[in-house]
């Protein structure tokens, strides 16, 4: 697949940056167009792989933003994006849309810019183009607290109704004890970039001799066609790279032996589904599913693909399961990536919504008494003391 990718806000921009890094490292060519949009000038300086002229600062003339972010307030984020919509539209003009199959908008939903400006950008894209627009959204972890949960719960509604499919990523799933703040986010972004690029880059190699099992862009798009929220599973295994001339000869002879047997292929898919999904969900609630094996085609047996597909058909309780490969002859790993499209049972989203409702109530309570409490604090009991001016 060929993509136009747009990162909105700090988290979205870093994700896009990591996707670019991963595709460069693995010789993929997924992101044909790149754009990052932010309200904070300093955050725009962070990406390593996004060209300078593909970074857009919005809201620098907005009274509340002035190029210094939106203070974690989704409403300000949306307002700023609406005000600068002409600016955003102008940058889209450069995107030669006939060159891409779809548009991907990545954003963190807990912050102000991603949650607020993200849906505004998507609205505009849907107006301008016929191509599907996918969302890639990072959901805040429980420990990020009530405000991010409220931003996310509200933004999730906008995202899911506006995009053609929303791929969710749960921050909590990648939390671990040893990490520093820096490593934590870095690792999460890499993990997510690996999954999303491995999934969507399949079928992009049109010129090479396409095997009969090869996955096509249209298959991926068909699976995503359901709308709703999707989750991605991933597992990979290192291949013993034969070294030296001699072993190369050997390899040719032993091709059949090196090729993974069906059980191993199936095991890899089972691992992909049962290990950390980008958002934990009930696999059986998936509407459609898709498996892609990325690695040297010699390693992937037709039989293995078929047995993995059958297994997932059972697990996901749907007949709409596609499976195929993405031949990467130079790769020293074999990866299985599983897309579970339109999963409806995601406990994490329920939790975020509950946390958000609590947060909204608390915020309303505070708003209601704020002025009164300040006045009573600064005034003595009988209002005998006067202001000086």
């Amino acid at each position, binding site marked *: 697949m060929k993509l136009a990718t747009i990162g909105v806000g700090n988290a979205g921009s870093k994700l896009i940056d990591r996707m670019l890094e991963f595709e460069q490292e693995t010789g993929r060519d997924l992101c044909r167009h790149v754009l990052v949009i932010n309200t904070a000038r300093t955050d725009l300086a962070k990406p390593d792989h996004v060209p300078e002229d593909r970074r857009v600062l919005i809201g620098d003339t907005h009274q509340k933003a002035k190029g210094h972010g939106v203070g974690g307030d989704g409403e300000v984020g949306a307002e700023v994006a609406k005000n600068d919509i002409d600016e955003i539209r102008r940058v889209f003009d450069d995107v030669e849309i006939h060159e891409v199959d779809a548009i991907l908008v990545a954003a963190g939903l807990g912050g102000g810019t991603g949650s607020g400006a993200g849906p505004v950008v998507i609205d505009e894209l849907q107006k301008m183009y016929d191509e599907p627009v996918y969302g890639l959204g990072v959901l805040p972890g429980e420990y990020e607290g009530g405000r991010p949960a409220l931003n996310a719960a509200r933004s999730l509604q906008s995202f899911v109704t506006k995009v053609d499919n929303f791929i969710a990523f749960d921050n909590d799933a990648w939390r671990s004890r040893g990490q520093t703040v820096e490593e934590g986010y870095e690792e999460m972004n890499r993990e997510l970039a690996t999954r999303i690029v491995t999934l969507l880059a399949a079928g992009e190699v049109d010129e090479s001799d396409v095997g009969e099992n090869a996955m096509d862009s249209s298959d991926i798009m068909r699976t995503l066609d359901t709308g709703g929220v999707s989750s991605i599973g991933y597992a990979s295994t290192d291949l013993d790279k034969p070294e030296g001339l001699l072993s190369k000869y050997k390899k040719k002879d032993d091709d059949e032996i090196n090729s993974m047997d069906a059980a191993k292929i199936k095991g890899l898919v089972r691992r992909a589904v049962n290990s950390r999904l980008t958002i934990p969900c009930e696999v059986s609630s998936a509407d459609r599913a898709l498996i892609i094996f990325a690695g040297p085609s010699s390693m992937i047996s037709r039989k293995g693909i078929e047995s993995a597909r059958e297994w997932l058909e059972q697990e996901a309780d749907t007949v709409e399961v596609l499976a195929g490969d993405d031949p990467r002859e130079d790769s020293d790993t074999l990866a299985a990536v599983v897309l579970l499209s339109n999963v409806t049972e995601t406990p994490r989203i329920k939790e975020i919504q509950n946390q958000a409702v609590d947060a909204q109530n608390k915020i309303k309570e505070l708003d209601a008494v704020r002025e009164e409490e300040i006045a009573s604090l600064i005034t003595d009991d009988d209002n005998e003391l006067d202001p*000086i001016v």
Partner: protein
Amino acid sequence: MKLALLGVGNAGTRIVDQLLAAESQTDRPLTEGNVLAFNTTPSAFADTTHIDGERQVVIGDIHPDVTRPEDIADRSGEDRREGVAGDPELGVEVARDDLPEIRRSLDMVDDTEVDAAMIVAGLGGGTGCGLGAVLLEELASIYEIPIYVLGVLPTSEESDQRAWTAARAVRTFVPLADAVFPVDTESWLASTESDGYGELNRAIATRLVSLFGSGERESTAISELRMDPNDLKRTLDVGGLATVGYAETELDDVSEGWYRRLRRLLGFDVPDPEPQTDAVSIKNLVQRAVDSKLTLQCDIETADRVLLVLSGPPKELSRKGFETGRYLLEDETGTVEILAGDEPLPEASRITATILLSNVTGVPRIEALQRRAVEFQREQDDLSATDPDALSADTTLSAEDDQSSEDDPSSEDDPSTGDEQPPSDDHGFDFQDAELVDQSDVEGESAPSEDESGKDETEEEPTPTDDNAAADDTIDDDTAADDTAATESESTADESAAENEPQKQ
């Protein structure tokens, strides 16, 4: 966040000076030179080392009521009270008179270069409160950026008048400013033995620079969750009183041995030293900042919004500790409006946690201050009602009033306190305070006292609350007088009838 700092009065000037010193020490460009200090006497600038001469602005030194240094050259010690001598009303007056001068000096501050302005003032002082209030009004009308006030509260050792001034300053500043940071001097001085003020000023400087200077330092490391100026602004957006907590953890100086350094130089892969902190110690650091002595002690459960900045070497900032710490804040303060960020400083020798609690409403110190101020004001009212000096300058009406109040048993003590000193006047300043109040009463300037100040109202304070307060007083006094009249004798009632006649004439 870039901040223009405007020191007002003695205390304000000193703290701004201290903040500038902290700014240069920590290498966080906070003000970009946008600094001014205002005073009613040049001597207040004597100890400043970081404020340029042209940015030291003397206001009102030609006003007849302002005491110049040469006026009191022959006096010494506690009698040396220059400037407006603790009178906030005079502070307001001279500032209003010199408004063109204030405006001119504000040209030296570029409000497009900074994200906010902060007035720093001692709230108990005549200059800090009076000039501060006028400056605040002025800034609020010309700047689009938020205006914050750092206001030092007087201790219980200081005079009642200063408490009264500070209570009124809080009442005045809070509605005008975007947020007020009162400094609870007393709780800070209580714990230190010597050089209390020096330590207090340094503590304030550390906290404010850690908070507002976060993200301003040139750093090679990239912050994952940088605190933008708008994060601070949004937190303070709710107005009211704000307070800052702070805690730090010193890191051991792990110097690499020569062998390791050599190996690294030769290109060997030398593992980095193990981090000295983990999730638990980071969480505990945040907890310590919550429990630390805040710039204003308060019930943290009354906080409206909260902001946390964690600074230190990136390898020491545990993500889990950071997130758990943030969650802990939500738990302890009961608000969900919490913003948290990191500030990676690879070379730092300590980790610091700075917390901003905005719009805290459970503040015992403010209530105590108000009680003391009300008491003082009532005392002054009684005093001026019975003070012979004040009466001599007034009409016969007051003289008769005086008589009638003699009939009132509750006020029998007053003449004696009036002649001597109020009971609380046990140290130097108060003698003068009493004098000053008397003086201003003569001019018809001062606070509402009794009937004639309500009726003769020619003051320049037409604020509704003022009138109400005065009216309330009048009503109360009248009813009290009426009650006495009714229970005592007809003659008192006659007197009060006669009382009105001279006024009509």
